[in-house]
């Protein structure tokens, strides 16, 4: 790659279900400037070249997790990906795979969130709400540290070959949330939660491929969570605490 490059090409996936029968690729030249992220490049296109391009963003600072897309062949956050770091003259930008495309780079996240809801991502605490605080020791909090930072961007789901081939597979994001509650000292519904995560489309579908760990922008380790649950499920079954 020439270092003195001052322009790159964005090869962007275009599809408008109201007008197009099939998707096509459209190329835009984007002027490089120091610190240019893929998201800023897309905003430049939107502002100066093509107002019809659709994509999602909000925080622009890797906080909201909404700008997940397929950039140069890898699921990434557009706002967190530096154009210069990709070291490419032409950068392909496509929507996340496996989800219905609404327009261009915008996908319908409903199937993803339906899976998330399946694991009941809230406390199933028995205590009367508001009566008293549920305190945690620093150690108890630390047990969650590896799993709690997920902001549901969907990158791991997009990177997972199992989710790509089995549309009903719960996927890394939902499963890591399931374990996040199991690991939480304030929840205490381990068996009910395991039952939600097991099942035909649940954690046994995971083949420890680790793609989710590779792409997670939050340093969450879904594979670790899934393996912990597999082990837990086996032990509890062997100990006679759960039935098949």
């Amino acid at each position, binding site marked *: 790659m020439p270092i003195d490059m001052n322009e790159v090409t964005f090869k962007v996936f275009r*599809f408008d279900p109201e007008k197009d029968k099939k998707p096509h690729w459209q190329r835009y030249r984007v002027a490089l400037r120091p610190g240019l992220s893929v998201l800023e490049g897309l905003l430049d296109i939107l502002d100066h070249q093509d107002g019809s391009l659709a994509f999602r963003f909000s925080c622009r600072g890797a906080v909201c997790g909404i700008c997940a897309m397929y950039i140069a062949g890898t699921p990434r956050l557009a706002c967190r990906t530096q154009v210069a770091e990709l070291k490419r003259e032409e950068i392909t930008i496509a929507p996340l*795979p*496996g989800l*219905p*495309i609404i327009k261009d780079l915008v996908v319908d996240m409903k199937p993803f969130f339906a899976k998330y809801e399946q694991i009941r991502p809230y406390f199933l605490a028995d205590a009367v709400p508001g009566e008293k605080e549920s305190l945690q020791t620093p150690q108890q909090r630390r047990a969650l540290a590896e799993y709690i930072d997920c902001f549901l961007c969907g990158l791991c789901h*997009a990177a997972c*070959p199992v989710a790509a081939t089995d549309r009903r597979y719960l996927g890394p994001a939902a499963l890591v949330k399931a374990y996040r509650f199991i690991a939480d000292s304030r929840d205490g519904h381990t068996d009910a939660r395991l039952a939600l995560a097991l099942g035909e489309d649940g954690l046994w579908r995971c083949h420890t491929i680790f793609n989710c760990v590779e792409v997670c922008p939050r340093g969450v*380790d879904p594979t670790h969570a899934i*393996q912990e649950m597999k082990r837990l499920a086996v032990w509890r079954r062997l100990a006679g605490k759960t039935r098949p």
Partner: protein
Amino acid sequence: MRRRELWLGRRLGAWAWLLHRLAGIVLALYLVVHIMTISTARFEDGAAFDRIMRTFNNPVVKLLEILLIAAVIFHMANGFRVILLDFVLGIHHQKALLWAVMGVGAVILVAVAVTLLPLALASGAR
């Protein structure tokens, strides 16, 4: 409309997974051929089996055997890694684990190759 994509992205874990499945398919197919071959020992008082063994006794088949053993070793070594991961052992070191089991596998493969290669060369002389 959805985009379909299987992301491998040159990440080791994904390649190990894919190769594991390919090796598994190769081994399953081999097993069918193998069982068919040894079943011929029931016919013609074993003469049929001897005939097949003679046709198999050539350098090409011997080299294929080395490849077959490579598939066995890969499947075994990575299988061991997967078992460890299922016990949540080395979960944060899956790549190092892969290199480690591949290293052990490579040593076994070299041992197999130095044993089989002379046989392969000699079999051509018959």
